[in-house]
């Protein structure tokens, strides 16, 4: 089944028939975590890097922010039987507006916080497709962990 992950949303699955998809990542960041042995995986679509801008909202919608959403996804996968040591991460999105004058850089900051958090948890980013001015759609195939990016009419795998 094709399961859609909306903006500020997260989905996990251990059903080999499932494909998780998130559409239209702009400066938002999409992160896949996958345990290849147990075939358990999750996909999150975070809009902003840090929850301190609106802690109340982070309580209701933790997946809006990288710093509150990513740990929840990680814990959910571990609770389902994934092993942290085996988790593979793939990252996409984090685009920026053209000659963004350094004022906002939401995409870049999203990417930085993802890297930091994963690094702190000893999770390896095996592949990523971030930055630039393109919008991306990200797919995770639960049966084998294949992660596909579609953008501007092109399609490629994050290996």
């Amino acid at each position, binding site marked *: 089944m094709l399961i859609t992950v909306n903006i500020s949303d997260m989905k996990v699955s251990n059903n080999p028939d499932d494909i998780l998809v998130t559409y239209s*990542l702009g400066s*938002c960041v999409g992160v896949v975590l996958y345990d290849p042995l147990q075939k358990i995986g999750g996909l999150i679509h975070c*809009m902003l890097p840090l929850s301190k801008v609106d802690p109340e909202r982070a309580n209701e919608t933790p997946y809006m922010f990288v710093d509150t959403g990513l740990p929840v996804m990680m814990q959910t996968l571990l609770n389902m039987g994934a092993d942290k040591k085996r988790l593979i991460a793939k990252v996409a999105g984090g*685009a920026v*507006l053209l000659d963004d004058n350094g004022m906002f850089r939401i995409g870049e900051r999203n990417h930085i916080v993802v890297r930091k958090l994963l690094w702190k948890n000893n999770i390896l980013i095996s592949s990523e497709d971030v930055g630039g001015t393109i919008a991306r759609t990200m797919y995770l195939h639960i049966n084998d962990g294949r992660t596909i990016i579609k953008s501007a009419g092109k399609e490629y795998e994050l290996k």
Partner: protein
Amino acid sequence: MSVRDKIVEKIKEVPAFPTNSTRVLNTINNSDTHISDIAKEIETDPTLTANVLKLANSAYFAGPKTISTIREAIVLLGVNRIQQIIITSSIFPIALKPLRGYDLPAGELIKHLIGTAIASELLGKELQRDLPPYTFTVGLLHDIGKIVLGTFIEIDAEPIIKKAYEEKLSFERAEKEILGIDHAEVGALLMTEWHFPNNLIQPVLFHHEPDKVPQEYQLVTDVVHIASNLCLECGIGAGIDGLNYSNNENSIERLNIDMRIVETVLCKLIGEVNNLMETIKTGEIK
């Protein structure tokens, strides 16, 4: 005939703005109109009546009280909101179709337009600036030119994208170089065709070049310019042109926007946009 001329020719093929809506908007803008005149005018059109009631009760527009008549809607929400609601419901069917030229699926352009309208108001609130009520409407209309380029002409975006990337141009500048016209100018011409007033046309025409707009529309244009880019950042309406647009530094400076304001607006934006889109889709908007 140049490509530009062909495009300008095509503008005439776009469906007219619904005449009933135009008539109501004119009635509203006539300073000596009474509320009951406006209500009567709306009620002659059952579809418009249903749409106005639906939207008047949506989370974004509604007050605390359920609204069951047009008269109540006008009294409780005010004529400015009624105007915005009428334009929202009239623009919806026109902007719903997929824009193949921009690789935008059905519903994405209207989501971007509604998103920009809402983000404009959220920005105004966070910046504590009094925006004129037509700011929302400018947001609703700012990319309407993409309808012409994306469906009626179905531009081939490939050479535009190529030029934009190779020469590090923003998408609308590459559009102008390849086609001789960009979506902002096409939108302004379409709105002229629809007999819209200048206070809506000028900000649409300059929404990518806010420095060039006449002074009296500066604030509105700056706000809509930033609001549209914020929507693209969250992927709302980002097609093949993606985020290939610039944030005008002068607009940021004039509005005195900082990161906290941007993030606060983004936090609120998605929920509001999704709610309003749901209301429109599941309801009686026809």
